């Protein structure tokens, strides 16, 4: 009896140890999500995955504007740090270099259709994969444009864009609408101009100089192009240029939805909101941002992403494997690809689903016609928030007439150098 008991006990212990060990081996996933709007979709997907595979997946969404702080705080939790998180640009790579696992050669990377949106560290290893891409440009209300007596074919470059916009603005009282929506410099709107719009001078300068990684300084060679388009935004609009900080992103959006303006600079992500609030897909299209650079008739939309997945290099191997498996499931399974298409639009993976967004169709048409993509050069910005804050304040002062364009140039060129120095 005693012997039997001893054997049984030993077996039980062994079984216990094995189950403990295998529990360790399955690993778990902890994703720190960036987009608050996608929180519910991620929670549902995580639950589904756990049901199907038994692997624990936890998703926490950082409050808007707090991702960096939240990630820093969460990473301090040694055993419970995120295994999956997001890096947006070169600055993020510099900050989190020690925490980002090299992803070359993983199954996940083999599923990708393009490496254009991935982020690399100083050694050229891929440390983050872009999991969706977006495009932005000048969203145009075609119906209103036609009402003003113009057509899309007229607009091929900056000169023609300006001609059309000037004309509409001059006749705004008669038409009942103006050319551009307000170029608000409130926090909810300013990123469109301190980030997205500054991409134009940055892209062209980097293209000319063959720059492929974060430079320590910029020259601002195309700042006159930036001035062209900014002047157009503030002149041919109903908004008061001296009070731009009072116009929010929501205000510009509403102006566009209510048919008060023909042009609205924004991106593919706006499609859902615009159509939900009553605009028709047939009325909408997106133009490239023309600013007076030679050869821009061949420009397509500005495409890129700030959403890249990174896996925690300091997590346990089991957790890393679990995370990579989870990601592979997300980009290959039926439910995963469906959710990604709905929440994030087109994803650069082989099994991706077609999104219904009209803007993406337009973006693809440009590409099919052989036009060049304006990639997101602004991803290289050092100390992004501070650099952009400088640009915003300079734009505000310039628009109000209390400073000249030199202030913007200073913020652009000298600001970049200072920000680079601060982060290195």
């Amino acid at each position, binding site marked *: 009896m005693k012997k039997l008991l001893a054997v049984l006990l030993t077996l039980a212990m062994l079984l216990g140890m094995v189950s403990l060990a295998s529990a360790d081996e399955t690993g778990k996933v902890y994703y720190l999500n960036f987009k*608050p709007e996608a929180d519910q979709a991620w*929670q549902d997907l995580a639950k589904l995955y756990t049901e199907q595979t038994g692997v624990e997946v936890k998703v926490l969404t950082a409050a808007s504007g707090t991702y960096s702080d939240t990630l820093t*705080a969460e990473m301090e*939790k040694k055993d419970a740090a995120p295994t999956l998180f997001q890096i947006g640009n070169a600055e993020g790579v510099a900050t989190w270099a020690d925490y980002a696992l090299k992803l070359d050669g993983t199954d996940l990377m083999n599923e990708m259709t393009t490496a254009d949106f991935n982020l690399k560290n100083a050694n050229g290893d891929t440390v983050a994969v872009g999991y969706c891409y977006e495009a932005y440009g000048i969203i145009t209300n075609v119906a209103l444009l036609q009402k003003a007596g113009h057509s899309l074919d007229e607009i091929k470059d900056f000169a023609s864009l300006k001609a059309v916009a000037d004309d509409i603005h001059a006749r705004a009282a008669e038409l009942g609408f103006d050319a551009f929506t307000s170029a608000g410099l409130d926090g909810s709107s300013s990123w469109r101009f301190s980030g997205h719009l500054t991409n134009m001078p940055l892209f062209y300068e980097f293209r000319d100089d063959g720059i492929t990684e974060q430079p320590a300084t910029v020259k601002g060679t195309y700042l006159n192009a930036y001035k062209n388009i900014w002047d157009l935004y503030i002149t041919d609009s109903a908004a008061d240029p001296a009070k731009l900080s009072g116009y*929010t*992103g929501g205000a510009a959006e509403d102006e566009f939805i209510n048919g008060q303006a023909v042009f609205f600079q924004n991106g593919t992500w706006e499609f859902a909101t615009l159509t939900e609030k009553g605009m028709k897909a047939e009325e909408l299209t997106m133009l490239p941002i023309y600013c007076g650079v030679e050869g821009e008739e061949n420009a397509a939309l500005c495409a890129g992403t700030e959403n890249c997945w990174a896996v925690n290099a300091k997590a346990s191997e089991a957790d890393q494997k679990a995370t990579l498996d989870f990601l592979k499931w997300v980009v290959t399974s039926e439910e995963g690809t469906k959710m990604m298409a709905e929440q994030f639009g087109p994803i650069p993976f082989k099994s991706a689903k077609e999104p219904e967004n009209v803007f993406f169709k337009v973006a693809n048409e440009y590409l099919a016609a052989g036009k060049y993509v304006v990639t997101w050069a602004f991803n290289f910005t050092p100390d992004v928030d501070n650099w952009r804050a400088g640009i915003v304040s300079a734009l505000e002062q310039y628009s109000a007439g209390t400073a000249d364009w030199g202030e913007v140039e200073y913020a652009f060129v000298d600001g970049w150098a200072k920000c680079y120095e601060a982060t290195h």
Partner: protein
Amino acid sequence: MEIPMKKRITDERNTPGKKALTVFFAVISVLWMMPIVIVLYNSLKTNGAVNTQLFVLPNAETFVGFDNYINGMTFGNYPFYLSAAYSVFITLASTFLILLCTSMAAWYISRVSDTFSKVVYYLCVFSMVVPFQMVMFTLANTARDLHLDTPWTIPVVYLGFGAGLAVFMFVGFVKSIPIDIEEAAAIDGCGPLRTFFSVVLPMMKPTLISVGVLEIMWVWNDYLLPYLVLDVTKYKTIPIHIQYLQGSYGKVDLGATMALIILSLLPIVIFYLTCQKHIIKGVAAGAVKG
């Protein structure tokens, strides 16, 4: 502590000068309340109207009744009543803990007055001057290492960080309490604990109230500390909940935000209206002897 009840510096009542003052202050009072009133009626407007016409009263078009309130409370997958419950618990528990512990500490410091307690006192005063940003990360880290990151244990963190002001004010007050009563109690055979709770604490009521009000205001409206310390998937407080209303790219549902602010003001206003006399008397009496 002799502060006469209805003391007047001058005696006459209804002179024209007085009437003018009344009118003057009436006007100022209305203006004084304007910002709050604006939040109130904006919480009843549509989002678009809040964005573009902040100061216009809601009309037939823009009035949406309680929609914003409902939106704000049901947004996301975290129920608002839970945030409210956590906020209430954390505020009350922290305030209670602070008042109890720091009053005792202040009494000790004043009565014992040795080198150690003097050092502690000055450390407390210094701590009132430190900006939160300086200890933000390290505090959050320490709190998490010690497993103080749940609503049930975060009052300890608040006691630690809020001890400075409370001790400062209590010590100032205790200094003015005549020592005879405590000596009498000691002669009668009361130990320090009994002396404190039956003799000293009742006399400290005004200061307890004034410090209590300060602490309640601080903890109720605090955003950074709970956000950094608590596990936000499980525990949210009202300020955190309001912050989550912001979508990415700075899109804010302003109507719902205004609504939630009004909701978060309500308990405070009710608390204030019911205890107004005590609060004002307390703040006044408690502070002047500091």
